[in-house]
C-alpha cells in the first residue's frame, strides 16, 4: 500500500516529523526512527542509532583474542551461540587449530537449537507487532524447552559462552540427546497449530503480502542477507555458500520465496525452523564419540600477522568477523559485520511511501536485534 512519492514531492509543507522511538513498542530496543509523515504515509525515514553502543570493537583491541568470546554473545543475545561459533571459527582458522569432530557436531546441534530459539522469539514478537498477543506465549512455550536444553549443557540461558577455541567447554550427555529428540518431536507437532493460528490467517496475509518488497539488486546494494534475501529468491546461505564447520555433511534445504515481501521472509524463517530440526536430527544420528576439546590449544593464542575473515549464517543473515592481526595475541583491529546493521540500513528505501502500520510490519520482518546494531 505505497503512495506515489512523486505526486507528493511538492507538498512537503504538509509533512511533519514523528519520533518513533527510542522507546517505542515496536522498535525492539533503543532504536529511534524519525518519520516524516504525510498523513499516515511515511515519506522519509531516518534511523538514529547509537543509544546502546558498547564499543565491543574497541574492547577487542585491548584484550587477548580468547577473552573476547563472552562479548560476542552480548552482541546478539538471541543468536549467542552462533556468534560464539563464528568467532571460534575465525580464531581456529587464523591460528590453525583443529577441532575434534564431536565438538563440531555439538556446535552444530547447539547452534541450530539457538537458531530455532531466535526464530521462535522473532515469530512471537513479530506477531505482537502486528497486534496478535497470543502467539508470543505459544512461541515462548516452545522456546523455553530449548532454553532448558541449552541451560543444561551450557549453564546459561541467554548469553551463552560455550564454545572455546578448539572445541566446546563441556561434553553433552544422553540426557541432552533424549531431550533434544523429544523437543524435535514436540516442535514438529506444534507446526500445524502455528499454521492454523497464524500463517493461514487472512488478516496476517493481508498485512504482510506486498508489503516491503525487496529485490535481489536492492539487497546487493545494501548488503541485505539472511531470510530477507532468501525471500527474494536468492538461495544464499553461508552454511551452503561458504560451508563452515560440518554443515556440508548434512542434507538440508535452503527455503526460498520469490516475492521478497514481508510474507516471503516470514515464510522463509518459518521453514528454516523445520530445516534446522532436520540438521539437528542428522547430527544427533551421526554424533561421533571422542574428545570435545582440541588436544593442544596454546594458552596464549598468537595469531600470525595478516587479516582473517570468518563468515557464518546468523539467524538474521551473514555474520562476518574480520580480524587484522599484528602477530600478537591481541587483535590489531576486529570488525564485526552484523547482519541487522546492513538489514536496517535498507529501511529508508524499503519503507518509503508506506503506511505507518506497514512500517511496523516491515521493521518486524527485519527481525532487528538492536544490540547487534549498536555493538
Amino acid at each position, binding site marked *: 500500500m505505497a503512495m506515489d512519492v512523486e505526486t507528493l514531492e511538492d507538498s512537503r509543507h504538509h509533512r511533519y516529523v514523528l519520533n518513533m522511538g527510542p522507546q517505542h513498542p515496536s522498535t525492539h530496543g533503543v532504536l529511534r526512527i524519525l518519520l516524516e509523515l504525510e498523513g499516515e504515509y511515511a515519506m522519509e525515514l531516518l534511523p538514529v542509532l547509537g543509544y546502546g553502543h558498547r564499543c565491543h570493537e574497541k574492547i577487542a583491541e585491548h584484550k587477548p583474542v580468547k577473552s573476547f568470546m563472552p562479548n560476542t554473545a552480548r552482541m546478539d543475545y538471541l543468536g549467542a551461540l552462533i556468534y560464539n561459533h563464528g568467532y571460534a571459527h575465525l580464531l581456529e582458522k587464523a591460528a590453525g587449530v583443529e577441532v575434534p569432530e564431536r565438538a563440531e557436531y555439538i556446535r552444530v546441534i547447539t547452534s541450530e537449537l539457538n537458531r530455532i530459539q531466535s526464530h521462535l522469539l522473532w515469530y512471537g514478537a513479530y506477531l505482537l507487532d502486528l497486534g496478535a498477543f497470543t502467539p508470543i506465549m505459544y512461541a515462548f512455550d516452545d522456546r523455553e524447552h530449548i532454553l532448558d536444553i541449552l541451560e543444561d549443557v551450557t549453564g546459561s540461558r541467554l548469553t551463552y559462552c560455550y564454545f572455546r577455541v578448539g572445541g566446546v567447554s563441556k561434553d553433552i550427555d544422553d540426557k541432552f540427546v533424549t531431550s533434544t529428540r523429544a523437543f524435535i518431536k514436540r516442535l514438529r507437532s506444534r507446526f500445524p497449530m502455528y499454521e492454523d493460528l497464524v500463517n493461514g490467517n487472512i488478516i496476517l496475509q493481508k498485512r504482510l503480502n506486498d508489503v516491503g518488497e525487496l529485490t535481489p539488486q536492492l539487497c546487493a546494494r545494501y548488503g541485505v542477507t539472511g531470510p530477507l534475501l532468501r525471500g527474494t529468491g536468492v538461495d544464499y546461505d553461508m552454511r551452503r555458500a561458504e560451508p563452515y564447520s560440518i554443515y556440508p555433511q548434512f542434507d538440508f534445504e535452503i527455503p526460498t520465496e520469490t516475492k521478497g515481501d514481508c510474507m516471503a521472509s516470514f515464510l522463509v524463517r518459518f521453514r528454516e525452523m523445520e530445516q534446522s530440526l532436520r540438521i539437528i536430527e542428522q547430527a544427533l544420528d551421526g554424533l561421533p564419540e571422542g574428545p570435545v576439546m582440541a588436544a593442544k590449544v596454546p594458552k596464549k593464542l598468537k595469531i600470525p600477522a595478516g587479516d582473517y575473515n570468518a563468515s557464518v549464517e546468523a539467524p538474521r543473515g551473514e555474520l562476518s568477523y574480520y580480524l587484522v592481526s599484528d602477530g600478537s595475541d591481541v587483535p590489531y583491529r576486529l570488525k564485526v*559485520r552484523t547482519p541487522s546493521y546492513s538489514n536496517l*540500513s535498507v529501511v529508508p528505501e524499503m519503507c518509503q511511501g508506506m503506511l505507518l502500520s506497514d512500517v511496523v510490519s516491515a521493521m518486524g520482518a527485519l527481525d532487528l536485534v538492536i544490540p547487534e546494531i549498536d555493538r
Partner: protein
Amino acid sequence: MDINQVKKQWQTLSTTIEDIDYAVSGHDYNICLERDKVRDFATLMLEEGFYLVDLMAVHVTPAIEVVYQFAHFETRCRVLARAFVDDNSEIATIADIYQGANWHEREARDLHGVVFVDHPYLFPLILAEEDVDLKPLLKKEGTLKDIDAVRRKPPEPAPEPKTKVKPEGAEAKPEAAKSQEQS
C-alpha cells in the same frame, strides 16, 4: 559471473591483485587500490553482481586504510579491496553506488575520522553529535603499527593451511612490529 573476465577488469583498475588462500584467510582475492579508483571499482563490482559485505577503516601508518569486502550471491568469491586515505583523511564515497555503504562510511567517520567526500549525509551515526572529533578507534602513539606489520607474511617454506601455530613464526612477528614502533 565469469571470474576470469572480472579479474581482467580488475587488472585495469589495480596492479596488485593477490590470490589468497580461502581456507586460511577467508578471502579469495586481495586487491590494493589507488584511492581515485575506488569508485570505478565499486561500480564494476555492482555490475558484476557483488554485494557489499562490509566497509571499515584500519588505522595504520602511513595512513588510515579503508577496507572494502565484497562477496557474491551465486559463487563463492570474497574480495578484499583496500585503499589508503589521503593526507586530509579523505577518500571518495561509494555510498551512491552501494547505498549500504552509507552507514558503514558514517561509522568509519565516527570511529576513525575518515571523511568520505561527497557522502550524502556524513552525520554522526553512532557517536553523539558533540563527540564528532573523538575518533575512538584511532590508535594511540606506540600502539600504532605500520601496514607491513599487519600484512600477511609471504608464505614461508611449506605453508600448510591447517597446521598448528608455528612458535618461531609467531615470535618473529612481534619483533618486527616492535621495530616499527621504535622507528
